[in-house]
Structure formats: C-alpha cells, structure tokens
C-alpha cells in the first residue's frame, strides 16, 4: 500500500557554501514531477536517521534542478550540510499553495525580505524577472544582520540589470560596508509607491512582519495589497500533524503564502 510519508530520492548535483551558516544545494529529483512547483512552495526534506523538516524552494519555476538553501540550526540541517555532489537527499512535496503570479501581473511590486526570507523570495523574484514585461516597477528591500550574511549578493547585479531596484541594509555595518544600516523598515519610506497599484510581499523572521506591514500601510497598502509567507513548525505537510495550525488554517496546505486579508482576526498569525 502507498503511504504519503514515502519520500522520493534526489541526487545532490551541487553543494555550495554560501555563508557561514547557509549552504545551497542543487538537487535532481528521481521523479521529475517534483520539479513542478510554484514560488513559495516547500518540500519536506529529510535524511534517514535525521527526520524531515520543511525547506523552502529557492530556484525559479521551470528550472531543471531544485535549489534548496539550508541554514544549519539543528540535527537534520547540520547533517544536510555534510552532503556533497552525488549524495542522496529525500524529498516529499512540493507542499502549500505558493504565489499565484497572475494575481501580481500588472502591479508594481515591493518585495521585503529579512534574513533567510530571501531564500523563498528568490524563487518568486526569478519567476517575476523571467516575465519582467508583465509587471510594473519592481523593488527589493533586503536586510540581514551583517554584510557577511547577505545571501545571493553575487546575483544582485543581474537582478538590477533585469529591471529591479535592489536596496540592501544590514543591522550591523562593517568597515567596508557602504550601504544602508538599520532594519528593513528604514528603507520603506524611501520607496516610491503608486497607491492602488502596488503589492507588497513580505518574507522574513517572525519579528519582522508587524513592523513591515505598518510601514507598508503608511504607504497606502491595505490588507488586500500585502502578501506574506509564514514560517511554522511542520511534521507532515499533509494538514494533519497540527504543528503549523493558525486558527482553522493549516499553513502547510492553505499557505504558507497568504494575502493579509485572509488572516483577518487571527491573533496568532503575525
């Protein structure tokens, strides 16, 4: 009998250290149907003996490999960091509903990423930049604790060249840092926003959401104009184990991407 807990093998094609704590993996899944995903979706990624954890997809839809960027914080993620080219990795998914690009077409988009929130955001950025002409003005505001922790910085010139304004900020500057210092919300007032035609997308650590939403509200964006992707603990990905639940929503199935208006009245959402 089949079980939804059966993981699918993937082979690591590339394993690159991208910062002190993060490693970027390119994975070839043994079942190509796993390559059909939307930005914002995730896999339950595991290793025998270490269990599974939800890991965001960072590659763009339609790419030949699945890219996963993993921060080493626990037993499983530390074990994942030991994987090299040719090693096996186990996946279930993709889970969740991700971003619907058609909903964003024709809009000016302000992407606000904090820390490893850039990992799932990158999948969306790649999808949007791949169809650049369908969207209005694009702005990415990305903040990390220090310049060392900024991920994908080597890709940012390409993103700028493709027609996106990229604004970076760090909490703690280092001598060589010439950019902005401060939390992401310090950059939001500087963004020009065409009211009624701008959508904000927020992905970051839990502490960030309320402040960024308030800053976007001040720019005239309402609950219909703001999308968030929410992190939660997950053990099954099937809407059953209960860990990711917010009110009646199971984040693994109904999310992790939500329009803020869908979370109205849910005291634990952000």
């Amino acid at each position: 009998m089949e079980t939804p807990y059966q993981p699918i093998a993937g082979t690591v094609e590339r394993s690159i250290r991208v910062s002190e704590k993060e490693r970027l993996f390119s994975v070839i899944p043994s079942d190509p149907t796993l390559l059909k995903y939307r930005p914002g979706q995730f896999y339950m990624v595991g290793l025998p003996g270490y269990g599974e954890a939800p890991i965001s997809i960072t590659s763009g839809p339609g790419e030949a490999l699945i890219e996963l960027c993993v921060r080493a914080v626990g037993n499983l993620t530390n074990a994942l960091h030991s994987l090299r080219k040719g090693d096996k990795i186990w996946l279930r998914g993709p889970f969740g509903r991700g971003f619907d690009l058609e909903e964003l077409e024709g809009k000016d988009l302000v992407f606000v990423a904090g820390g490893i929130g850039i990992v799932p955001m990158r999948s969306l950025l790649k999808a949007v930049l791949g169809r650049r002409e369908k969207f209005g003005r694009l702005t990415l505001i990305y903040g990390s604790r220090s310049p060392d922790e900024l991920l994908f910085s080597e890709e940012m010139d390409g993103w700028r060249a493709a027609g996106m304004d990229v604004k970076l900020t760090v909490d703690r500057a280092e001598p060589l840092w010439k950019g902005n210092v401060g939390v992401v919300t310090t950059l939001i007032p500087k963004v020009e926003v065409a009211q009624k035609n701008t959508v904000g997308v927020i992905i970051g650590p839990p502490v960030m959401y309320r402040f960024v939403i308030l800053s976007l509200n001040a720019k005239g964006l309402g609950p219909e104009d703001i999308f968030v992707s929410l992190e939660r603990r997950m053990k099954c990905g099937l809407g059953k184990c209960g860990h990711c639940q917010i009110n009646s929503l199971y984040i693994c199935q109904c999310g992790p991407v939500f329009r803020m208006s869908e979370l109205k009245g849910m005291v634990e959402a952000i």
Partner: protein
Amino acid sequence: MGNVNDFKFLSERGFQGLVKGLLKELKVYGTIVKDGFPAFGEISAPEELVLSSTPTHLSAKEFFFPQREVLLKFNIKTAAFSPVIESVDQAIIGMHPCDIRALSLMDRVFAAGTPDPNYLSRRSKTLIIGSDCMPDDYCFCKSLGNSEAESGFDIFLHALGKGFLVRTGSDKGRAALLKYAKLRAPSTKEFREFQGLCLKRDSSFKAKVDAPPAELPSIYAKSDESKVWQKIGAICTGCGSCNNVCPTCYCFDVKDEVKASLAEGERVRNWDGCTLEDFAKVAGGHNFRKTRAERLRHRFNRKFRYLSSTFDSLFCVGCGRCSRACLVKINIVEVTNELVSECHNK
C-alpha cells in the same frame, strides 16, 4: 430512545456467545477495570468485560491511532525507505456514545485531503460495539447533544438488569450477530426497563454547557482576549494530559529512531500535544505560542471553534476526560461557561 422495533433482545448467555465467537476471529478489546479504574484493554474471556461504566481514563483512539507507530522503515546503507502499514482485525467492545462520536470525527480527519492509510486500514478492520454508560461529575455529552449514538457503531448494547437490548448499525454488525448470537424481539417489560434506564441516565448529568452547541464557535470567536486564558494559563503545568486523554486530539510528531546497529531505523509517529511547550517552536528557537495561556486558548479553540469551520462539527464530544485528568483542575465546562457568561454580559 427510539422505537421498540429498532431493538432486539440478547440474553447474558447470548452476549457471552457473541464475545466468545469474536475472540475466535479477532483481537478483542473492551472496557475492563485496570488498577481500579475503567480502561480499555485486551480481553481473552467475556467475563473480563465491565460494561455500562463511567468513562475510561484513556479514550479508544489508541486502537486506530496508536501512541507510537512506525510509518516507514529505512536502511541507512542502502538508502531505502519502505512503508509500514500494520493493522489487525479487531473488535472494541464498550465504546460509549461520546467515544463513538469522537471516532466518527477522527474518521473524517484522517480521510480528509491526503488520506492516512495507517489509520484507515485499522479503522476498516474494526468492529465497533457500543454500550450505554453512566455519567460521572465530569460528563457533559448531553449538553452537546452527544449522549445517544445514532450511528457510527456496528452493534450497540443497552444493558438491562439481565440481558441487553441491541441495535445494529451496519452490515458488519448484522453479520456478526447472525453468526454468533441468538436474538429475539424484546418484551414490553424489557423495553419499559430500557426506557426507565434511559431516563435515569439522562437525569444523572451534573455538568452542562450553558449555551446551545451551535453557538459555541461564535462565543469562542469573541473570546480571544478573555481574561480566562491568563487565569488558567497561570495554573496550567503544561503536562499535556488533556491532549493525551482527549478522544479527538490527533496532533502528532514524526521522528527517526535509529537501531543500535546504526544501519537501520524507523520513521515513527508519536502523539504530540499543543499544550506542550515545544509544540509550535521552530528551528532557531522562535515559539509561535510562547505562553501556557496561548497554548490553552489554542487547545480550547480547536475543540469548539477552529475545526468546526472545516468539519462542520464541534470537536469536543463532552466526555470530560481532560477535566478528569487535569492535575490543577482546569475544567472544560467551567472555562466554557465563563466565556458564555462573559459574552452574554458584553
């Protein structure tokens, strides 16, 4: 209470014959007395059963959703996972109306979306024999409309002074009775005795929720900021007993256990509890429900509000197990009635 034509009479001896017959074919579990308390346990003879008891300490969910179960076996060297779906033919004797209601909710949960083959396989191999009960101080199923089981069982037994009135709820139940029991139509006297027992049971409930069940989701929806959560959060020990004893708590953890050989292991599902501190904590340490007050609010809302929009039913069945098991006497009826009265006074 039903119509006399819905019932058959089964004698004591007939009941023993039924249980003995089932014991030849299946694993049989039922309500017994364990360490002085009513509990579900495996039986090997009909005399071990104690029917019509007050509620068991643990519910019957463990027979469908065990406290620990293997989902996959894996070999680390060959890097292979293989599914484990274990189930045996079994009968559960003595499930009360609240337990049967809870089981029907669990059936819907595990069949919804991506069906859970482990649960569904066990469920399909189970014969449910319900039985009447006697409420204790904590039982409040009547005020939630669950004091009588209309469906969800294969056979239901109403114990009389001598013998039983029997209802059948499925073809499976009908076949078992046909095979192992001799039934006859009940006499008027037997039916009157049954009616008398029903009235006695109905009038024995002490605990009740002070609002119609249909109003409870909206009462809870208005109570996110109630002081009740801080009050019970301050005394809750976070032990998770309420989750463990609840017949509709189905949250679980999944983790890997590696054998001493370090070559093989199992991916295992264990009961988890939303009142435990780590339940909503993510890697990196952020806890989405930091306080006991928040965790209790979540649990109570799951029973009366959150799942009602998905499954169109309350998930509290009124068994009172959480209140009975609570180390600090947090009582689900008292908490709910405080919210009811706060809402009515707003």
